[in-house]
């Protein structure tokens, strides 16, 4: 029997190794597709011009280099024709033309050779009909250069028969244009096995679902692996597994084969818009910093709603991985975000090793890596999850010291607060939780409260002083809390006039209508905050319903924000996130009720209590700010599942255990019906027992 058990464990070890190898390989295979978007193109010089449609006047064609030799071309106005001349540095290698049309829906492409044609190749003398359905690869004749002429066509089953005059009048947008030596890797990825399966099905469905199954298997298998080896190697293996899972997600969301690769996504999206959007604000700041123009959004303007950390992160990414253009900086930032997330998971595994059973460390680390993420988006929210993981890691180190009855050295507390400070440098929503956790940690040694205070003042003061050069006023954090409170009011259905998707412009207009202040100023921020608090007091029922509604959204899965792919749908499609969240929350409640690792559980789970509630009154933006809360729930609730003492504690007081579980089950069952009932209670919603609604500048109805 002993030999059978040993054999089973050897088999599990081999299977575990195979599963990890497959997971890592699957993600690494996608690296080039994610960050390059296409194989190396043949270097070519390109020029473009266009003819305006009708009476539109002059027309200009702008070019963006996606990679060397791969371009995006857009006309400035509605166009009747776009011409592009491509002259390859080595015409013999220019065998295939890659085109992806974005707008209009249909064009006819005529390819006109220039110079003497070679013996091989094909030129579409009669033209090629293109649609906006995706990439097209066209064989080219070997000629010194070609002129491509794109003429809009009317949509329909036979564009060839349609007159160009009925084509929609829009600018022409060619998302990708380049010449290549081979067609391999243009329409489908080059893979050593399973080559026949189309990329959408292979990468979009089969691989992520198989990898998700393997991830779950490794969690079960880890229980049977030698504890010492798992503890030693998890911090080394998990970063690679995490990096791979990140790449798998990115390869699905930004596929060059059945979507838009990251370079095209940014070139066609936020980088073509003015500075200050969610996805380009940090990039512009970082780029300007790297080019000696300060941490500014544009000349003379600093970001009013952002802390400086993310822009500095973008600048660091540019230094590490390149910043020749803003597009290069975007890709560098996504890469560094992915590496940071993976490294944070590795640090967590190292720090949590002495605190949790090795299988629990593997499970928590893997689940952190597996969660939906926002790493493809160049905005600060992508970094909150890794920041939260670093906080968890530092707290694990501290908890290990206190568990062992050893004193906590100042250096360790400095490290703990440094992780909080990193979060604060990114986003100020950490402040209430940081303060309360600091008080909980240091209430016996209150002098150590100086550590977070110094970090706070150093970061806030530096940023405040820097901003003051441009704004003429000093603020330690952002001046957008009022805007966030304002927008947060309208995230629950109501009859109030502003109850719609909230945008900066909505807030700016409201400030302009009611005050003489600049909306980005401290004065406007204070005004908005006062008005929102007054509104809460005017309509306390609205406040109650808003908090209840957002609480339920959080429990329904918003605390794991980010874009779900089949990697996550494999689980979330089988078990609704609400039930997973409530099950984990029940474990936290059991730990608290039994006193089982109560301090550890509550400390690691602090964002559940001190961060999530902030967004129940402030702007939650469909949950995209919650990522730290989801991380905290995993760190607090998953380890007990792997600890025998947890089950022993439950068995020791079964009545209490049953009571907690019964309460959780009751809550789970009645919460949504109660929520739905509450939302229908207009009497409560619009009840004004304390203040006169006429005095509120927010109480107008539709």
């Amino acid at each position: 029997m002993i030999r059978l058990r040993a054999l089973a464990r050897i088999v599990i070890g081999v299977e575990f190794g195979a599963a990890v190898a497959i997971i890592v390989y699957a993600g690494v295979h996608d690296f080039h597709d994610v960050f390059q978007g296409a194989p190396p193109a043949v270097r070519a010089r390109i020029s473009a011009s266009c003819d305006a449609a009708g009476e539109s006047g002059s027309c200009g064609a702008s070019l963006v280099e996606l990679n060397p030799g791969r371009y995006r071309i857009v006309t400035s106005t509605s166009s009747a024709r776009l011409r592009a001349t491509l002259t390859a540095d080595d015409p013999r290698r220019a065998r295939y033309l890659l085109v992806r049309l974005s707008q209009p829906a249909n064009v006819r492409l005529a390819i006109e050779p220039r110079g003497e044609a070679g013996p091989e190749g094909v030129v579409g003398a009669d033209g090629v009909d293109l649609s906006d359905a995706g990439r097209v690869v066209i064989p080219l004749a070997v000629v010194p250069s070609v002129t491509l002429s794109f003429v809009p066509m009317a949509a329909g089953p036979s564009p060839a028969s349609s007159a160009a005059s009925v084509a929609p009048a829009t600018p022409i947008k060619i998302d990708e244009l380049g010449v290549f030596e081979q067609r391999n890797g243009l329409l489908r990825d080059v893979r050593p096995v399973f080559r026949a399966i189309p990329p959408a099905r292979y990468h979009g469905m089969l691989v992520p679902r198989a990898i998700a199954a393997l991830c779950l298997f490794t969690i079960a298998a880890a229980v049977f692996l030698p504890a010492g080896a798992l503890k030693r190697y998890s911090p080394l293996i998990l970063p690679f597994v995490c990096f791979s899972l990140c790449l798998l997600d990115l390869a699905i969301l930004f596929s060059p084969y059945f979507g838009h690769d990251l370079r095209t996504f940014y070139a066609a999206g936020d980088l073509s818009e003015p500075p200050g959007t969610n996805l380009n604000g940090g990039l512009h700041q970082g780029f300007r910093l790297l080019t000696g123009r300060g941490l500014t959004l544009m000349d003379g303007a600093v970001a009013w709603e952002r802390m400086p950390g993310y822009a500095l992160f973008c600048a660091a990414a540019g230094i590490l991985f390149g910043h020749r253009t803003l597009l290069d900086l975007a890709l560098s930032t996504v890469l560094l975000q992915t590496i940071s997330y993976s490294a944070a998971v590795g640090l967590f595994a190292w720090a949590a090793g002495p605190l949790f059973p090795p299988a629990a460390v593997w499970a928590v680390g893997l689940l952190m890596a597996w969660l939906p993420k926002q790493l493809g988006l160049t905005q600060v929210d992508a970094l909150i999850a890794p920041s939260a993981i670093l906080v968890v890691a530092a707290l694990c180190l501290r908890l290990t010291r206190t568990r062992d009855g050893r004193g906590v050295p100042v250096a360790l507390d400095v490290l703990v607060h440094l992780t909080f400070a990193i979060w604060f440098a990114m986003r100020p929503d950490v402040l209430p939780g940081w303060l309360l956790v600091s008080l909980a940690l240091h209430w016996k040694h209150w002098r150590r409260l100086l550590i977070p205070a110094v970090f706070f003042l150093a970061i806030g003061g530096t940023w405040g002083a820097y901003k003051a050069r441009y704004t003429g006023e000093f603020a330690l954090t952002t001046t957008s809390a009022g805007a966030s409170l304002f927008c947060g009011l309208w995230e629950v259905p109501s009859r109030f006039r502003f109850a719609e998707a909230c945008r900066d412009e909505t807030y700016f207009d409201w400030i302009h209508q009611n005050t003489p202040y600049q909306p980005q100023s401290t004065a406007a921020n204070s005004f908005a905050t006062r008005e929102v608090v007054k509104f809460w007091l005017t309509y306390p029922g609205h406040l109650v319903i808003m908090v209840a509604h957002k609480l339920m959204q959080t429990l329904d899965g918003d605390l794991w924000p980010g874009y779900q792919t089949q990697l996550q749908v494999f689980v979330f499609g089988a078990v609704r996130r609400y039930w997973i969240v409530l099950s984990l929350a029940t474990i936290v409640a059991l730990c608290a009720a039994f006193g089982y690792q109560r301090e550890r559980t509550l400390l690691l789970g602090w964002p559940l209590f001190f961060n999530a509630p902030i967004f129940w009154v402030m702007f939650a933006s469909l949950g995209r700010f919650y990522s730290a809360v989801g991380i905290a729930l995993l760190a607090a609730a998953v380890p007990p599942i792997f600890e025998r003492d947890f089950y022993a504690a439950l068995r020791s007081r079964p009545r209490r255990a049953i009571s907690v579980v019964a309460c959780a089950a009751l809550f789970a069952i009645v919460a949504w019906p109660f929520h739905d009932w509450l939302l229908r209670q207009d009497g409560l919603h619009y009840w004004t027992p304390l203040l006169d609604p006429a005095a509120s500048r927010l109480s107008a109805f539709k």
Partner: protein
Amino acid sequence: MRSGDLAALATAGLGAWLLWSQYSNIATLSWWYDRTEYVESMRGTMLPSPDYELGTLPWKVAQPRVFDVKPDRIALVTDAEPYGYQAFASVDTHGAKAADIQFEAEIEHGGTTIGLLQAGKWIAVSSSQRPGRFADSNSAQLGHNRSITVVIANNNPAGETRLAMKSLRLYLRK
């Protein structure tokens, strides 16, 4: 045997099954894409002789309104059953491991499903609900059952379908 030992054995078994089943599923799908791509690529070239074709398949009918078989064409008007089987032909596989089917039809009205059944289950299906030319190729790995059935079924929620089968080739691969 202790519960821990049983759990270890079960986990080892689960791992083996998981790794094999994932590989097997993807490999089978890859084979299918490879095969159908190959069969489709043969269309329009000098086609090898099939094991069966339109005029040599032993057709039987359910209750179509019209089923007119000629060597190079079948005219079919289905009954009003939206998804009812209309005509089928069962043939011996002679130990073949795979089957390829290639066909061309002209749908005048309604829609149709054409495919292969083995042991009562669809193993290859091609469907269209659009009038006009409907040509496709499909492949399937065969089980141990000794026969397969080519099926033409109605696929029109509104009722009757009119179509003409212009060709149908069935290849059995050892």
